[in-house]
């Protein structure tokens, strides 16, 4: 594949908004405390830790009047997109830029709010504003309108493969010359129904026979956020966050040879994945990090993994959230980092591949 230059990153999550906030959380300088949300299930009340994201920073970028009709989902996406553009120093965009927005669940809170309007007021009084904002590509529409992105525009939804499929599409568009740059990102949100489902699934798991399987990494609680990358072809100039050089959707875990190509291999347990294949410990150079402690568990966590790896490459420092949260220096100056997000391949869900990619800062 052609290498993709990562020129800007726009993260939004429970840790805050912007790369400095993400970096501070990665370094352990900033403690992220989840909000405890009361959830009622058939087993009574539970306090579920939820990693919510604030979009207050958006008001410093866009007039409040223009944000009136945007829901929280679109605001998170727009904020991440604006921050990625700002980080990349981009102001003039237009038709040679593509926009890709990945989301596993879409604007679920708005979808349920639309149902509220139907249930409370009747079919004939359903809310048109809520309906139009519940459509999966509403966030992409708001971003395109605000940033004047008139190139190809793609919204996609592929569960935990949403982020790698978004990146794969960016590679395609740039390789074919359809666009010169791509604003590529992902967004997912928390809502009350998700909290109920999360807690109910946890309850079921606690009573199931395989409750000990993978128990060493309990999910910390659902999260929400957005993360956008400003990507372009490698053009000989230095990319501040390195290059996405390899992108694979795998149905098996990386083997030792593959793992050796990327030193170190970051294995982040992002989404609601508490059941990774146990063999991961056999991989050399595997550096486990747990980003869920700064952004919660969410299906687009792969974007946060890549952002974390790119930030570490940029800073030439490993930020490992071990108990001391002590940053480590990379072992040598010219190196690459791999990210691998494990996923259980089961009979019921045999098609969810793992994602694995490598960034290399100095090769080009």
């Amino acid at each position, binding site marked *: 594949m052609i290498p993709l230059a990562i020129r800007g990153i726009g993260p939004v999550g429970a840790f805050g908004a912007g790369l400095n906030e993400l970096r501070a959380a990665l370094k352990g300088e900033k403690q992220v405390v989840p909000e405890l949300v009361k959830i009622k299930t058939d087993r009574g009340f539970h306090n579920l830790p939820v990693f919510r994201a604030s979009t207050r920073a958006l008001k410093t970028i866009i007039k409040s009047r223009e944000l009136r009709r945007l829901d929280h989902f679109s605001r998170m996406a727009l904020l991440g997109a604006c921050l990625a553009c700002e980080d990349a120093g981009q102001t003039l965009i237009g*038709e040679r830029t593509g926009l890709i927005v990945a989301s596993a669940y879409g604007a679920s809170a708005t979808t349920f709010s639309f149902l509220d309007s139907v*249930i409370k007021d009747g*079919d004939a009084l359903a809310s048109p504003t809520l*309906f139009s904002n519940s459509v999966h590509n509403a966030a992409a*529409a708001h971003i395109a309108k605000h940033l004047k992105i008139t190139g190809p525009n793609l919204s996609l939804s592929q569960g935990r493969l949403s982020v790698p499929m978004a990146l794969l599409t960016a590679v395609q568009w740039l390789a074919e010359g359809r666009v010169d740059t791509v604003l590529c990102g992902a967004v997912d949100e928390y809502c009350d129904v998700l909290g109920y489902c999360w807690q109910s699934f946890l309850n079921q798991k606690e009573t199931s026979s395989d409750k000990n399987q993978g128990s060493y990494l309990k999910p910390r609680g659902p999260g929400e956020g957005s993360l956008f990358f400003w990507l372009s072809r490698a053009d000989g100039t230095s990319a501040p966050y390195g290059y996405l050089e390899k992108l694979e959707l795998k149905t098996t875990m990386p083997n030792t040879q593959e793992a050796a190509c990327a030193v170190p291999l970051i294995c982040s347990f992002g989404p609601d994945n508490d059941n990774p294949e146990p063999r991961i410990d056999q991989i050399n150079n595997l550096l486990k990090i747990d980003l869920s402690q700064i952004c919660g568990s969410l299906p687009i966590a792969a974007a946060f993994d890549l952002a974390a790896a790119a930030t570490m490459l940029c800073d030439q420092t490993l930020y490992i959230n071990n108990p001391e949260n002590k940053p480590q220096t990379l072992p040598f100056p010219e190196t690459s980092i791999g990210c691998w997000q494990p996923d259980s391949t089961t009979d019921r869900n045999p098609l969810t591949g793992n994602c694995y990619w490598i960034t290399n800062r100095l090769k080009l």
Partner: protein
Amino acid sequence: MSISGPATESPPNNQVAVTGVGALCATGLDFERAFKALFEKRREPTPPQRFDLDHPTTYPVFELPPSPLDREDKRQPWLRTSRLAVAAAREALQDAGWGDGNGLSQLKVGVCIGTTVGGAMNDEKFYRDFLAEKNPDLKPINRYLRSNPAAVLAQVFNLHGPQLTVVNACSSGTDAIGLGADWIRSGLCDLVLVGGSDELCRVTCNGFISLMISDQQPCRPFDRRRSGLNLGEGAAVLVLESDKLQKRHQPTPQAFILGYGSACDAWHLTAPHPEGQGLRQALQLALTDASCKAEDISFINAHGTATLNNDLAEGKVLKSIFPQTPFFSTKGHTGHTLGAAGALEAAFTIGMLHSGKIPASAGFSELDPEIDHAPTNGTKDLNGGLALSQSLAFGGNNAALVIGLDGERQ
């Protein structure tokens, strides 16, 4: 098996062969019947039969005829949208000579499917029980989680290539075909199942009625008296194959995807740009991609939803770029099938190129002076082997495909 990024930077050949077609919608439960009905005058949208709506007046829809697909069973534990997609894919694979798809698991086979409803968690019964604190069972959630249309097709046919569910609202089906064709062009896949699928449901019916863009009569695309759309449901899947695979498999290509263009109005959440700015750009990109000119196009399968805004913007663009080219909308027969629409219309476009005929634009009878450009008003014979199928969507998305009978023309 693993899937890496595309192998080549410059595609050697833009043409992508379509070797199989499958489709179902209100006009028929397979492609042949669905296509044939487009040339008949009969069209019978009815109030929804599978669910109730509570409005002072009725809004007709184009529902599928009753079939086993109406039932969720143990073999098909998915949302209806995915069951429709599977039915269309089975037909397309049979049509392409792949039988039940057994030979595909050893190939690089991708799935790229457009939808709107298929990507949304909106089970109303579950939500009502949740609001009432009845601790609803998670069965509807599990069904939703396992119903991603692209993942379902990959699971059913044991495919291990890239899976992508496009949720670009009403242009999803067209975009899915364009993106899947790119996977073939770049060498990422040997074969791709592309298309779109969507079911009728209360959420979309209530949503479009709330926007006041649903007609209480059978819809009238491009007509002066048009008053909105009728929703529909259906699915269409095309089998795309690489040159390399065709040499081994030796199918008879039915058509070729020659060009794809996509562009955004960046204008309004629900309304198209009044001058169709994004559509113009998407059309130009598709024509350039196919190395052809506007005058090479023999007909256009338009989006033509019958809403005031869509048909006005689309009609203006068609008049200025293709003043002599016949165009029509098939939504007067199928209803607006949302994420499936672009795929169904691409499938119909292939059928028309083969039959050498295009149908009347159902529902049209009176020219809109603001558009000043009339769609077909009767069946016409075709001249030429190149056609356009185009879609506009919520969010300002626009997508266009150039489809040809002859892959060697480039």
